[in-house]
């Protein structure tokens, strides 16, 4: 049995079926790119896995546990939103420590963990920067650090490169791949760019007309 299993997930909006009995298995440390044009339901699938959206049918199993009926805050999933959605009222350290604070980690341990993560994403020394002063690439790394803070079981990345310009993209793509590999977590990476999909992933899955081509 695989580490991550999506079992026949279906979702329709207003009578239009976007996900039609999607099934997918992933192993630990595997990066799967989910490829498809805009509006095909890629984000919807990630939101269902994260619990932000309810599937019409189907199950989500992670680490051999069925989490289909769990609230999103209990799922322990790392989700990187398109556009990152960094909290503008918190600085870099505050963003990364958000989930740790909610769990009442002691101050010292939070500091350690934040430093460790900033090291990982090459942003050491940026703790106190306001997030809106960062470049898009740096914001991306903060968002990545934030979703790693709580040691999630699965990474979901929704078009992380879409707000970056072409020049920085190639470089950051390689970098992001290294970051993900270092975590040894399974990751699902959404993109509409076939080139990007091939580069980042171990395996490309194409979403079309509600079906997944593996």
């Amino acid at each position: 049995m695989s580490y991550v299993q999506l079992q026949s997930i279906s979702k329709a909006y207003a009578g239009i079926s976007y996900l039609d009995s999607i099934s997918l298995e992933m192993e630990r440390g595997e990066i799967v790119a989910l490829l498809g044009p805009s509006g095909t339901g890629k984000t919807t699938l990630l939101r269902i896995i994260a619990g932000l959206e309810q599937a019409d049918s189907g199950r989500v199993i992670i680490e051999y546990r069925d989490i289909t009926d769990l609230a999103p805050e209990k799922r322990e999933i790392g989700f990187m939103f398109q556009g990152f959605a960094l909290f503008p009222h918190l600085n870099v350290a505050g963003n990364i420590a958000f989930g740790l604070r909610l769990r009442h980690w002691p101050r010292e341990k939070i500091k350690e963990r934040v430093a460790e993560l900033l090291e990982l994403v090459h942003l050491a020394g940026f703790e106190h920067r306001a997030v809106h002063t960062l470049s898009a690439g740096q914001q991306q790394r903060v968002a990545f650090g934030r979703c790693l803070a709580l040691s999630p079981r699965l990474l979901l990345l929704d078009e992380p490169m879409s707000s970056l310009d072409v020049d920085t993209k190639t470089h950051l793509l390689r970098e992001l791949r290294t970051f993900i590999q270092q975590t040894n977590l399974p990751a699902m990476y959404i993109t509409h760019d076939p080139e990007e999909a091939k580069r980042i992933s171990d395996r490309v899955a194409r979403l079309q007309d509600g079906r997944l081509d593996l």
Partner: protein
Amino acid sequence: MASLKRTVALGILFGIPLGFLTFFFLYPLGMVFLRSGFQVQEVFAVLADDYYRGVIWFTVWQAAVSTIICLLIGLPLAYVTAQYDFRGKRLFRTLIMVPFVMPTVVMAVAMRALFARGGLFAGWLPLYETVWLIILANVLYNIGIVVRIAGESWERLSPQYREVAAVLGANHWQRFRFVHMPLMVPALAGAALLIFLYCFCSFGVILLLGGSSFSSIEVEIYRQTTQLLHMDIAAALAFIQLILTLFAGAVYLFLQRKFRWQLLERGQNYPRRRLSGSGQHRLVRLLLGIIVLVVFLPFFVLVFRSFYTENGFTLDRYAALFTNTTGSLFFLSPFVYFRNSFLIAGGAALLAVFLAMLVVIADISFRKRHKAVSWLAQSVQIIASLPLGVSAVVLGLGYLLSALIVPSPLFASRSLIIIMHAVIGFPFALATLYPAYQRIEPTVLEAAQVLGATSWQRMRYVVLPLIRQALAIAVSYVCLLSLGEFGAALMVSRPDNATLTVGISKYLSQPGSLNFGRALAMSSILAGVSFTGMLLIERLRQPKTYQIGSVQHAVHDS
């Protein structure tokens, strides 16, 4: 030659509004400053006097308490309407703003109809002639601001923030506490400051409900000017008030700078949360319904009592508007108040919109050619927005202080009040027309130009049709503002220019149920006109949805 013509046109287009504002706003305001500036000792004397210190403290205190209560009650309402979709939401948002457009005089009469002797609540809620009645009136007035301003920017906020927090383990309360609240600080601060300033400069409510025991800075300026003829003390108080207003404005600007975030906005059709189950639905609607009833109650009672007398339902009170029972030579037929008010409102609206249009046209025709033009346009906008920070009573004081120089045929006539109301309405007219004009795609105008349209034809056949709605809104808005305006009109009122609000306050101050009855009837009519006007504006605000050439974005891409 052409350039000379252009310079002349430019001079006219900017010169008229600039000259108007200079002569009818900056100059009288300057007179207030001069008066207090040359007599600094008067300002210090006022500050040293226990009585005036009490007045200043009371003004700040009642405004602060009213603001806090508004926030406490308004916040949950703003949250529910922002986060959930349910039927009747739009209606609720419209209705809760109704008191806000009601003239202060109408609110005062309504509160008296509820709480004064013989009022519906007089027996078991002894609020009359206490400070709590003033605060209650303030809260009813301003609660809508929280629901509207905070609620609508809350609604625009991208749900992604909440969702990120959820994925990171935040429960409902934590999402609210650690994400929504801090992100909403700028919007809430804006709403709070607006409410504070409204209550701080509140005149009609305190004058007419406070009796002789409560006096705010505004009321004190009025009394010192018209009853005691202490112009120096009035000018000193006006100076202190302006300083405090400026200070509040500076605090606001500081907060806006500090929290100048680029917030992600809710995508085009990102789904709003629905209330789950009909039980929740019904509960929310019941609660909101009760709120609306409470907010409307004073006005219901006002209209009810305007018809209901000892003899049951009659039109006596309305008929009394046309009879001179006092036999007084000085009896002014209430009809005169109506005529004055409507003439003034119409005049002020046309004048304000005309002046605002001049600025917009100047901007259209010359912006691209001269750097100086956009600089001029900006300075006109800045000067035009200054009346927002100056209370009507202070403006009135300025006119009185400069009365010697303003040509006397103008003084004490309706035109004087038309001009004052145009000054007060100008920033609103400009704020309505400018964005409407700026929404016009520049390429649309260029297309017209390529097709051979002169600048006049572009104006006539492209711009005007596209901003027709905004024009109608601006005219109606300034009309409403003028109809309900009390402080400025009272400061310079004479028998031949008294407006409806001034007339109502006169009847209120005279003894006898007949006079109170007249106040009830006139207030009901004024309330009806304001309510209708507000509905009209709300209708005009509904955006006509046509979209040309722009891409329909996918759901979650913000």
